[in-house]
């Protein structure tokens, strides 16, 4: 219990919006009888995150990810339930909590647009009361992974998206916070920068035991980083489990693809579903708990000569798509 860094308990958020009708008649209508709708963006969400975890918080657009993160860092107050960060509530102890928090919104930069990156860092150093020696050390360390020194003297407005993102990440880590919220940190970035950012997250997590909550639409990020994923859809948590478990339970089967030397074959196997792919390729679909891949391969090679083979891992994209689809169906 002690080590729960983040504890969300029935966290809920409702937004009340007035619907604007269009056209002249709509304008008149808005004037006299605005239509109010209640949107439940986050609905009784509970989870517990312990120190040093990297948690992927995923869900389709508009699922309520950003809203949850905003509640966790005190930007929004919950309509119901509560959240504790390091045992404190962001509702009444925001300033204290954010001292130990790093936040990056991928869509928006927190750097000064007209100033060299370094100036923004200097400013943050003063805001978070980091003493100079520690700051220098942190910066050197961050620079090692993110290579920010390349553009530290360039005004932020002249940076490319990837450079800016690296700058933003460094800025969020300057005061070595124990919790890091990353809302779509890899949005719009190329493969190299994505790789650097993943590496960065991994390293700080290993080195400082930083707890990381990461939202993203790039499931490769998840696969590379997160042991645990929480899936939210339409404000409701639909799944919260370790990544492997999730894949296991969603897709019990795996695929083995073999290429045979002989073109003429009649392979059958009681524990696998077989589909031919072209003239001498086969796809075998089997369940891990019924037969091991090794056994299956040896059964086949007893009949025919195998030239090449390949075991296909379950695609996480498929898994997630399946879960989204199912929870959407459940809603209807």
């Amino acid at each position, binding site marked *: 219990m002690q080590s729960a860094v983040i504890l969300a308990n029935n966290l809920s958020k409702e937004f009340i919006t007035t619907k604007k009708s269009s*056209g*002249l008649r709509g*304008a008149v209508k*808005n*004037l006299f009888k605005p239509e109010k709708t209640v949107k439940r963006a986050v609905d009784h969400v509970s989870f517990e995150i312990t120190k040093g975890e990297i948690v992927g918080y995923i869900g389709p657009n508009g699922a309520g990810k950003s809203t949850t993160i905003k509640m966790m860092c005190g930007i929004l107050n919950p309509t119901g339930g509560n959240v504790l960060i390091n045992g404190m509530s962001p509702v009444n102890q925001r300033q204290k909590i954010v001292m130990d928090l790093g936040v990056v919104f991928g869509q928006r930069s927190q750097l000064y647009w007209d100033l060299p990156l370094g100036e923004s860092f200097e400013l943050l150093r003063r805001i978070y009361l980091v003493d100079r020696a520690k700051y220098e050390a942190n910066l050197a360390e961050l620079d090692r992974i993110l290579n920010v020194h390349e553009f530290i003297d360039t005004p932020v407005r002249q940076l490319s998206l990837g450079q800016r993102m690296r700058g933003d990440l460094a800025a969020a880590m300057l005061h070595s916070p124990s919790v890091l919220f990353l809302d779509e940190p890899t949005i719009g970035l190329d493969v190299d920068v994505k790789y650097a950012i993943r590496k960065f997250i991994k390293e700080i997590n290993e080195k400082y035991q930083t707890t990381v909550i990461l939202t993203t639409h790039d499931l490769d990020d998840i696969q590379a980083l997160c042991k645990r994923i929480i899936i939210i859809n339409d404000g409701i948590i639909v799944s919260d489990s370790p990544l492997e478990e999730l894949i296991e339970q969603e897709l019990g089967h795996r695929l083995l693809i073999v290429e045979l030397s002989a073109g003429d074959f009649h392979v059958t196997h009681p524990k696998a579903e077989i589909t031919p792919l072209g003239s001498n390729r086969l796809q075998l679909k089997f369940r891990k708990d019924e037969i091991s891949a090794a056994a299956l391969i040896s059964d086949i090679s007893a009949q025919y000569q195998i030239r090449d083979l390949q075991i296909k891992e379950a695609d996480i994209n498929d898994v997630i798509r399946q879960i989204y689809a199912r929870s959407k169906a459940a809603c209807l």
Partner: protein
Amino acid sequence: MKPYLYMIKIKLLLALSYRYEVFITFITQIILLFVSSFFWKAAYKGIDSVAMVNERQMLIYSVISIILGNIFSISVEDSIRQKVRKGNVAVDFLKPVNIFYMYFSEDIGNVVTSVVQQIIPILIVSSLFIVVPAPASAVHFILFLVSVCCSYLIMWLISAIFGLFYFWVIDIGPLGEIKNYMILILSGSFVPVWLFPPIIQKTLVFLPFVYIYQFPISVFIGKTSPMPALTGIAVQAVWILGFGLLFGKIKRHVEKNIMVQGG
């Protein structure tokens, strides 16, 4: 003609949906109206007339000036500025309509809107509480209308020329502001130029400013009689021609540049 009429309609609809802004703008105008009327009443206290203009005429002067201020709130300069900033003005230039007609229609739309939303209410409030802004005579009124149209064209062309400047210097910053202050003071929008020292008055005759505010208003209140009014309108026409030519020249230059550099 169709797209331009549509533009006017869109403007009207947009303005109607901003009810709150309309109301706020109206309040600002009313404050302005009352402040100027109290100001002139204080100035005229015990004084019959100054420069052959009496208190009543001066009050009408300030009411009409506020109304003209509404009509002359031209958006072409701002539109271009915004677009240049966001870097999508070239797209506009390459549209199959003349974008300056488009901007002009937009501004005419604004005028129509402000007649409904601001000018009529201002006239009512002014008639009830301050002074009935009646023209000196029917002839004066017609001449006033003609000269206001000319003033509008002058103002619009100046704005459009400033808008074109944004192509050279991405952001001339407060230069537009400076121009606005110059117009406000030198055109007699608040204090008529006839109260200024004679030398300044004589100089200003050769500049376009007084033909924007002071000239039409003094026709309205009868300080300028019909014959000089006609001469004044002729001078306005000359200014329109001058600014029009200048505008055309700059516009051609800008268009050529856009074709070359792609905006």
